[in-house]
Structure formats: structure tokens, C-alpha cells
């Protein structure tokens, strides 16, 4: 994974993506399926609902977790000026192709005190060529 979006990494564009037609989450469309080459990674800025107490979770949900890994990166909260504005740390989904195969990850936007009622509950299929 690189910092600059090189050939080995794409940001915002889904390599070999397909869109399952689901509604955007807080204005962001999240793919249901991505295809990567081994060693390639994909980054997508996720909408944050931390202001409402929600956090993103990514957990293995099927296939071979060793084929593709999904992680969530939390960036720094933007600095405040003299007048604070409600602020959110950026959250980035990072999918990495590890070895040929197929992995399914569950993405949930959930409150830790209300685990049974997530705001978002999606499956993300990562196919690694």
C-alpha cells in the first residue's frame, strides 16, 4: 500500500468494480464487490457518523480471509479554529489483495451500545486475481 495512489493502489475508483445498486450511505456509494490483483490495494473514504456515536466495523464473513484483507483507517480530526465546528475524523476503507482467491467481509456502521441495530450492514466481496 502506498501513500500516493500509485499503480498498486486506487482510491475512489473500484478496480473491476460492480455496483449492486444499493442506496448511498450518507452520500457515499459503497461497492459490494471489488477485484484486485495480489499486492494491489483499494481505498475508499467512508462517511463518518461518529457524531451520532456510530463507528465502522469490518469483520471476516466468508470465503478465504487470507485472500483479501479489509481494514479501516482513522485519520486525524481536522484542527479547529477559534470557533469549533462539530468535527469528524476521516475514515478510510482499505482493501488489500493478498493472494488469489475470494474473501467476504462484513461492514457495519454501528453503535457499540446498540450492536443489534446497525445503521449500515453490508457484505463486501474481495476477489483477488
Amino acid at each position, binding site marked *: 500500500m502506498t501513500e500516493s495512489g500509485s499503480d498498486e493502489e486506487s482510491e475512489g475508483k473500484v478496480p473491476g468494480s460492480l455496483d449492486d445498486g444499493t442506496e448511498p450511505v*450518507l*452520500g457515499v456509494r459503497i461497492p459490494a464487490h471489488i477485484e484486485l490483483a495480489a499486492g494491489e490495494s483499494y481505498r475508499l473514504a467512508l*462517511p*463518518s*457518523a*461518529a*457524531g*451520532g*456515536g*456510530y*463507528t465502522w466495523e469490518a469483520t471476516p464473513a466468508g470465503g478465504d480471509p487470507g485472500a483479501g484483507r479489509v481494514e479501516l483507517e*482513522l485519520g*486525524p*480530526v481536522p484542527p*479547529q*479554529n*477559534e*470557533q*469549533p*465546528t*462539530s*468535527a*469528524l*475524523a476521516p475514515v478510510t476503507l482499505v482493501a488489500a489483495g493478498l493472494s488469489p482467491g475470494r474473501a467476504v467481509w462484513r461492514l457495519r*456502521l454501528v*453503535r*457499540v*451500545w*446498540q450492536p443489534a441495530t446497525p*445503521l449500515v450492514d453490508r457484505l463486501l466481496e474481495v476477489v483477488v486475481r
Partner: protein
Amino acid sequence: MTPQAQPLTFGQLRAAIAKEGLPWQAVPEARANQRVTPRTLGGDPKGLPLADKAPKIDFRAIVDVGTNPFLAVRRLERGFITVDKIQERFPRMALLRAGLAEVTEAEKPPEGGTAASVDWRNRWSRNWITTVRDQDGCNACWAFAGVALIEAMVKIEDAIWTRLSEGDIHRGIGAKCANLGNLTSVSNFFSTNGVCDPACFPWATNDPPYTPTPDRSGRTVRGPAFTWVGGVQAAKDWIDLYGPLITWFDVYNDFFGYSSGVYQRSTSPSNSEVGGHFMLVVGYSDALGAWLVKNSWGTGWGMAGFGWIKYGDSSIDQYSKAALCNVNPDPWSKRRLHNGALYESGNGALNRNLEVMSSNGSRVQHWWREGGPPWTWGVAKSFATDAAVCPTLTGTTFNRNMELVYLTPDARLHHWWGPGDGSGPWNDGGVFGPTDCEGIPGFVQSDYNAPGNFEVVVKVAGGRLRHIWRDGAGWHNGPKFGANIFLSGRTLVQSDFGSPHGHLEVVAVLNNGAMQHFWRKETLTWKAGALFGTGIFTPPVMIQGQYGMVNEAGPHGNFELCVAADGKVQHWWRNNSGDGHWRQGPIFGREVAMVVGMCESQWDMNLEVIVRRLDHKLQHYWRDGAGWHEGPVIGPA
């Protein structure tokens, strides 16, 4: 179109809707363009300053007696006001009940001593804080904190539980669910436009178009811009002497899992900062070294939605906190709290003038009393020539108009309306209703449609009651109900029973001298309820007050009813949050011919009653925690 620029009459409103659609539909874009700019969503240096850069508040210069007797005693205790000043504004018994007897000679401020702890959820054995809300997945804490502050100050300053809409602020400034926000935009919106109730425009997470009901300007709590309070000591003083504050707070991951105790963020490297957040500070404890906050993440978070946060933790004291005082509640918030010829308007320096309408058998005379010392009654305008009885007066959502209905000598009903500030002129709304009206009309604005229909119940020939109502198409004669009716009274209330529309409730006097309660559910069928009392042959007055309510959600305020019998006043009440039975309270007064008006006032929920005496003069009585008191004779009816 500027929503509050011109008085909106019923006729004008109908014409506007027919011609242009809802008048408010044109407003949101203009407001969005005006309010939502990078400046207000970014860093406004004139907004919420760093705590150490905030202008220092000189409490000695700003603290006055106020309108809450408990706070007044507290201000006396702290040395900010004198005994003479406080006794000018409050009856001695009210002050004794609020703790005056315990107050000793105070040191002068600031040495007078900040309270070691304050919890507005239970201060002076009462709750002053509205229910915990849930912003769900939207980043709208700023709107929720703003509404929480305004609602709390309406309760603290004006003794009224009100439910306001976070969506009105949120969508009113053009924000969407994912948008961030700040308190300057909330303060600007509130001070310019007020905040309406959810039935006018609700909170929703799906960014609906901003289309509040066309009567928004008459159903908004109003008030000034926020004040910024910088520094821990000043914040404690404000909470002790005025009320809650809105604070900024850096949210770290471990805050999501807070459930009890005092929160102090973990310094573990894995504990990441996830954002900044606004919450309402409703108290503090020096023993705990912590602020008490009301969050907007539902009651499942923290301690039923509340939590303690250690002083200084997570930047909670980095910025000044937002404060508010001198709010002005609207007629809609007070719609169940008054009936008959008496209405507590939002007029006057303290937003609580009493307005009374009397009749000498033909003319209507408007009387008013300033909402504070010297408590003298004044004569306002006189109008109409056919008022057979004292009118039934109410405040409506038509730009806070005052509107009234009375029985005419021709057995009809007559409607008049005037501007809410009482300045006149009074406008003739026309004669309406059946031709066999015989009694005193009950008259309210209901929540059917927006602006809400007018509802009238009056005794008609044949010993029956008749329901008459007005919608956008005019007045309609509704069904007759009841039997053996001797008198109707100023008792019509749209109660908080029922959803989405409250029941209509009315009490009438039967031929046998008993009173009977009638009510109508959403099925639109009137039902006969309980019989109570004996020997009653004068028209009663009834309100639904707030005794019995824990917060703005209820459960249900009691019905309070006053009626004259044998030259005195009987007070009856129904325990609406308990067994639902009518009970008789104390008997008071003398030489009383008839009760003509009643309200639960903004003076600590006192009951205020206007009677017509046997000598045809009006007199004021009131009840505080010490019982009923005889007030002045106002003047000729």
C-alpha cells in the same frame, strides 16, 4: 417572503395557499443561501471563542431577580440581589417555599460561593430538563444541543414544558444529515427565526425539503442570540445562577462505550480521536470533579443518555460554552394552559402579561396586567357591541394573534381577532354558528390541519351541546351531543391524550347541578364521561395544566377546573397521570358570581383565576404553593 414581516390573517393565508402554495416554501433556499456558508461552517472568529479569550462576564452587572423564584432565592443567597428587590417581584410565601427562610446574610459576590454541585435534572426536587433525544446517524449534535438548551430555558424561566424541533434548525439553515455545524449558526437561526415544534416541521434523517407549516411564525419559541461563557468558574456560576450551557467536546473511541462513573479518556495509543461534538451541560459536581452532560445519542448511551465528564478532559473546557436567557414561549406551547377570558401572552418585559377580556353585556373590554411589578391592571381597547357574555380568549398560531369568541344576544357566536401584542385594532371575524346557541362557548385552536382548526363547543336549544369547527373553508356546524345540559362553559381543551391528534375534552353543567365530562377521540364520536360535583349552576372553566408531568413527554398533566357555587369558587382536578378520578380541592373566594378565566401561569405554574363578582366587577385570585390568595378587583366586567 419574510415569514414574520406581516401579520398573517386567516383570509390572507388561505388566499396565499390557493395562489402560491404554502408561503414558507419559498423561504428555505433563501435562508440556506444566507446561513450556510464556509464562514459559518468553518471558523467564525466572532463566534464561540477560546475560553480564555471570551469576554469576561460580569455577573454583578447582569444578574437580576429573574422569573424563577428558586433561582431568585439562589441569587439572593449568592449576594447578587437584595431582599427588597426579590420581594418586589415574588410573594413572600413563594419565596419561603423556594428556600428564602434558609438564606442568611450573603457575602457579596463573587465570594458568595458557587454551589459545590448542581444537577438540573433534580434541582429543588424538580426536573427541569427535557427528554434525551437521538440524532441517529446524522452529524447534527449542534442542532440537538441547541434545542436542548432552548427547551431547558423555557422550563426554567417560564415553567413550561415544550417540545421543539431539531429538524427546524437543521433543515432551516440548509444542513443535511452528513453536514457538520456550529453554534453560531444555531444562535443566528434562533434569534432571527425562533424554533418551532415538531408538528410544524419534524426532525428527520432523510433531509426532507424544508417546508414548515405556514403558521410557523406563530408557533415558535423566540429569544435572543446565545451568550458565550468562558472559563470553568464562569461556567459553574452560570449553571448555578441561570441554567444549562452547551459545551464542545473531543470524542475519543472509548467515549462510545461510556456507561457509568466519571469519563476520563484513556491515554492508550489505540484510543483514537474520532471527532468533535456538542452536548448540553446540565450540571456539575466538584466532589466528582466533573460536568454532567445530556447527550443526543438516545437513552441507551451512558446513564440513560446522561454522563459525567471530568473537568478539562477531552477539550471540554477549551472553548467558551453557549448560554441563553430571556426566552419567549409561543401560544402553541401554552395552548392547554389557559381558558376562558384569561390568557397569559408573551407580551411585556417578562413575556408574561395577563390579558383579560370582559363584557358589560354588549362591549368587549380588554384588560391587561404587566407580567411583573407593580402588578397593576390597565385598560386596553374596547370593541364590539354584541357580546352577551365574557368572551373566551385564546392565543393562536396566526402570528401569535389573540382571538376570541362570544355568545351574541341573537343566539349566535361572534369571532374577533387582533394582534398578539394587544395593540389592536381588533378585527371582526364575523358571526357564525347555529341560531340556537344558549351557552358560553368553549373555544380552542386544535391540531387538525396547520394552521389548526378552530373548535367551539356551546350549549344549544334542547339541552344539548354542539360542536362547531372552522377549517380553511370556513365554519361548520358539527354534531350535537350530551343531554340535559344546563350550561356550557369555558372548558374546551384539546388534551394530550390521543395521537396524532389530542382528544377534545369538555365539561358541562347538567340540569341536576352535577358536572359531566365529555370527550371526543379521533373517531370523531363524542362520549359521555364522569359525573362529578353537586349544586353547580354556573359555567365552569377548565385547563389541562402540567401537574403530573415528569417532563415534556408527560405522562399527562392534570385537568384543573374552577367553578362558582354559593358565592365561592370550587377547585376540581383530575389526576390524569394516575387514577383519572376527579377530586375536589379547596374552596376559596367570596362574593363570586362566576369564574370567567383560568390559566397555569409562567410564575412557577401558579394557577391564576379571574372571577366576575356579584357586583359585576372582575377580580383576580391565584394559587401558589401556599394556597389560594385573593387578588385585586380589576374593574367592571
